[in-house]
Every structure is written in C-alpha cells, then in structure tokens.
C-alpha cells in the first residue's frame, strides 16, 4: 500500500471518428510511492495531460489498469470516479480555473461542499486555515479578478488540498505566471510535499523546476522513456556547459524527434488535430530556442 499510483500497460486512444485514431498513451507502466514528488517532462502532445487525467480519474484508459491508493479505478462509473476525485485527488491547472463568481474563500470550499465530509462551520474554518497555509489570509473575500496570477494559483493549491487528497496533480502550475512567481508556487508545493508528506505529480516544461522533484519521468510520443535522449552537441550551443544546458538541449532534441514522429503519423491524424499539435510543437520549439539563445548570451557576456 505504499504505492499511491500504479499504472499497468495503460493505453489511451482517442477515436476521432472516420477511422482516425490518436494514440495519446501507448503502454504506460508507472508506480509512484506515497510522499513522492514526481515531475513529468516531455514535448507538447506527448501525453502528459492525458496521463494526469487518467491518474486523476478524469478520463478512463482504453486499455490497461489504473490503481489509485490501492483501489482499482479502471472500470469505475462516472459517479464513482467523481467520488475518487473529490476524496483522493487535488487538481492544479495551468490556468488556475477558479470560479470567477466566487471569492477565494468560497472557491476553496467547493470540494468540501461536494464531498459532504465536514460540517458547515468546519468547512469554513478549514478553508480559512488552508488559505493561511498558502499565505492568503488577507485575500479571503477577494474574487479571482481582484487577485494576481500567483495569488490565484495559491488559491487553487488551497482548493486542491481541501479534502486532504492522497495525490496532488499539477499540470504546468507555473505555465501562466512569471518566473519568480512560478518559483514561489513550486516552493509552496514542495513545502507541502516535505511538511505534509503530500504526494505530488507535476507536469512541467521547465527543467530547472523539474530539478526540485525527487524523480523526473520523461515522456515521448505516448511512452515513458528511461532518460532523455543522448545529445549530439551542435556547435552553436557548445558554449552552454552545465546541467541546465543538458536539460535544454534534451528538450530541444525531444521536440525535434516529436516533430519527426508527428510527420510520420501525419496520415493517421485528422487535419485539425495534426495542425494543432504541430502548432504546439512549433511554439515550444520557438520558446526553447529563445531560452537557449538567452542562456547562450548570458554566458557570453559573463
């Protein structure tokens, strides 16, 4: 029972109709222990979100077995999955996803209202306590539009913790905030992991952020790969010579591999999803190249 997550040969295929199928996950085997902090990295479209959704009971696998906290949720009904989500899972999204009509305090209360585990006064006390935990005791009655991105994400973290979940699933939690705020959020999550022993699974594109987790899972094209692909250092980036460079280049490499893979699969995808995925890759590539460039210039100016 020390495994909170156990995935066996999990396959997820999206059927887009007209005989077009997308293999988002292609045989995932993964175990995560209680209290672990795991990062998932990989190029856009490689299936990270799909994997989190399946672990979180938001989506069901096409094949394989999903065991969460010792419970086999593979064939659960919609209602049973909803119960698993509110009792065992806390989701944190890139876009915060707070209810704009509700205050911070009310947003944190939502999962507890759905769960019906605490009394009304307990719910309120707990929500206040959680908001204090994330350092927002002065923002209780603010609406999301009256808060900064970082504050909103901290509300979302408090909300994710509301029902004392077994697992926190964070999908690019720093994707929509600036770097500095991102770090604050990561340190907050890391702190929860260290002080509460909270199991966390986080998707990130940022190798330095991934560094703070105990384990990094690399994905490529719907599969988990043991380590980032070997690098062939090209001259333009030979000036970067540390761990960070390694990570960046690894990601660059995956991206290029993914794009190649996408071209191979092009005929099996419908035009829309192909275009969408490709656009995602290209954006990512652009961003990465920029980061590499910045990094490169920083080094040179030193």
């Amino acid at each position, binding site marked *: 029972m020390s495994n909170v997550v156990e995935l066996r040969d999990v396959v997820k295929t999206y059927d887009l109709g007209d005989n077009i199928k997308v293999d988002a996950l292609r045989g995932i085997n993964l175990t995560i222990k209680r209290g672990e902090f795991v990062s998932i990295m990989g190029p856009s479209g490689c299936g990270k979100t799909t994997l989190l959704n399946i672990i979180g009971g938001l989506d069901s696998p096409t094949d394989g077995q999903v065991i969460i906290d010792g419970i086999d949720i593979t064939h659960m009904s919609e*209602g049973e999955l*909803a119960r698993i*989500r509110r009792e065992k899972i806390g989701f944190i999204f890139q876009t915060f996803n707070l209810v704009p*009509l509700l205050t911070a305090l009310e947003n944190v209360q939502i999962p507890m*209202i759905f769960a019906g585990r605490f009394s009304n006064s307990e719910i309120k006390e707990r929500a206040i306590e959680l908001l204090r935990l994330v350092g927002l005791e002065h923002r209780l009655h603010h609406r999301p539009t009256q808060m900064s991105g970082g504050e909103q994400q901290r509300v979302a973290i408090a909300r994710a913790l509301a029902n004392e979940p077994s697992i926190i699933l964070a999908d690019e939690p720093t994707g929509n905030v600036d770097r500095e705020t991102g770090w604050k959020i990561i340190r907050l999550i890391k702190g929860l992991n260290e002080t509460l022993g909270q199991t966390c699974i986080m998707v990130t594109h940022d190798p330095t952020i991934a560094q703070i987790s105990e384990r990094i899972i690399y994905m490529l094209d719907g599969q988990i790969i043991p380590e980032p692909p070997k690098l062939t250092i090209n001259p333009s980036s030979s000036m970067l010579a540390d761990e960070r460079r390694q990570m960046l280049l690894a990601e660059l490499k995956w991206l290029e591999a993914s794009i190649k893979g996408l071209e191979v699969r092009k005929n099996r995808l419908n035009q829309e999803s192909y275009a969408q995925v490709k656009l995602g890759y290209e954006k990512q590539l652009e961003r990465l190249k920029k980061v590499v460039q910045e990094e490169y210039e920083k080094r040179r100016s030193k």
Partner: protein
Amino acid sequence: MFRTARFAFTMARRSITRRKFRSALTILGIIIGISAVVSLMTLGIGMRSQVESTLNEMLGAGIIINSGTYGIDIPEHVQSYISQVPGVNKSIPIVMSMVYISNKPYTVVGIDPVQASEVYQVTLEDGRGLRQGDDDAVVLDSTIASNLGVKVNDTVTFSTQAGGVGKTFKVIGIIRPMAGFGQFVSIGCFITLDAAQDFFNTHDRVSSILIRLDDPNQGEQVEAILKQMFPDASILSQEEIMSNINQVMSTIDGVLLGLASISLMVGALGIMNTIMMSVHERRREIGMLKAVGGERWHVLIIFLSEALLISLIGGVFGCIFGLGGVYLIQWFVKTLGLNIIVPLLISPQILALGLIAALAVGSIAGFYPSWKAANVRPVEALRYE
C-alpha cells in the same frame, strides 16, 4: 444536498447580477408572461362570476319562452294556457326590447309591477318602485342613471331609434345595478307592461313569457310539453342558458389561456437561451467543478438554480404587474365609455398559480441547458482555452 443547493443559489445570484442586462431582459420576458397569465385569469374569473350572478338575477324564471322571431309577437293570452301546464307555478308575460335614450341603446323591460318582484330581486337606492298604473314612470339602475346624468324626478325620453322622437318617462326610482356584463345584456331599465306595449305599439302582445316552476328539477318535462304546444317559439330553460353561457365562457377562457401560454412560451425561450449562453461561457468552469469531484447533479443544480431564480423574480414581479394590468384594463374599459363592470377579484390562488407557473416554466426551460452542462465532459472542457 441542501448545502449544494444553497451554494448553487449563491452562484446563481451572482451570475444574474453579473450579467445584469441579459438577466433583466430574461426576467422581463417572464414578467410579461406571468403578468399576462395573472391578469387574464383574473379577468376570466371575474367575467365568469359576473355572468353567473347576472344570469341568476335575470333568470328568476326557470324557463323563458321567446318569440321565434325575437319580436314582440306572442299573444298575451297564451299565458293562460301555459299556467295550466302541470309543473308551472307561475307565468309572467314581459316585453323586453331595445330603446334609445339620448341616442344610446338600452334594454328596457316592461313587466307587471306586481309580478316583477317574483322574478327580479332589486334593491332600491332612491325613490320608489313601480306600481300598477305608473305608465309614465321608469325605474333605472344607478349606472344607467349616472350615465344619463339623471336623478329621481328627472325625465328621460325613449325612442325606438337613434335620434327618433319618443315618449317621456319620469324617473321614479333608482335601483342598485343588478350584475350585468354589458348594457345589452344587463337589465337596468324597467317600465310597466302596459307602458311598454303602448310605447312599442304592440297591444296584447309580448316578447317573452317567464315561467316559474313548482320544482326546478321538473324543467325538462315542462320544457318538452311547452315545445309541443309552441313549436315555433324559442324555449330556453335556465339550465340550457347556463350551459350555453358556460360554453362561451370556456371558449373565452381558452383564448385567454392560449394568449397567456404564448407569452409564457416566449419567456421560456428567453430562459433557455440565457442558461444556454451561461453554460457555453462557463464550460471550463464546469470542467473544473467536475475535476474537483462534482457529479452531474451538482452541475445540474447549479445551472437549474439560475433558471429558477430568474423565473422566481419574474414570477413575483409578474404577479404584481398582472394585478396592475387588471386595473389598467378596468380603467381602459371605463375611458372607452363601455358600460362593462369588470370585477377585480384578487384571489390568492391566481397569485400562487402565477408563481407556480413561473417556476414550472423556469425549471422546464432551464432543464435542457442544465442537463447539457451536467453532461459536459471535463477532459474536453478543460482542454481548450
């Protein structure tokens, strides 16, 4: 469950206040629908009660024989045959016809003053009633008197056609109006039978014979005998008249109800549209609600609350405006100079019905979009910006 509902209403309240203009339009739609229901129902019920009491007052008689031509051509002595029909307690010949007073048409009844009290219950407000030999006198009801601007001891001139020269009668008594729903139907102008026959120049002839029965339940048998005796006459029993009138009233009710439902339908479409838009705008939010453990019914309740709250507000104001509408119609009828009294019966049942109708419309119209919301697939809702 209760907690979710309370939470849902908080969200609904804020959603409505956030989209003020849109909500106001939707609520207005419901207000129009419900106020139409309330005012039309109030009118319908008022008219029905009016008609019923009118008939009861008019038809002290169990059976009325009218001339087949609706003229004044029944020989008065026929009455003596009728009196002998078994089951007939009393038969009273009358002349009922139209006269013009100050160029406006009124129904005048000529009746033997002694017998009048047997069929018409009247209450004197001023002056006195008709007596035998009062052949130049008229008794008016207060509505007609005030329309004509006359008091006791004033005179009025009857003529058989508008603008014609006529005969002058002295107003000797003013009575409380009997229930009536129009000057053509309501009876509020009485002269003696002799005076009427003299005025219409129909000596020994009458327009109708009112018959009182020994036992009201014998109506059918007596009617059958009379039909054999006078095949050409139009013989109406009170029951028949009642059922005819009821039929007419039901038709009117139907039309009013139809009008009301059309306006309710418009309100319903408004709600459906508003909730549909709300669901569309809040797709991501729905996905999130499900991700944090919300089930279908949680989402359903959240959106249904919005529909119910809108319809509740619309219902309350609809009831208020509906009653206002009745006053408005009354006023309108009055300024048009129509002599129709539309009684205003504010019944709590109608108000309750208005509210229930509003909530029913809200939940029915809100259900489909809320159901759509409940079935949003979270993975897809969260996927797209």
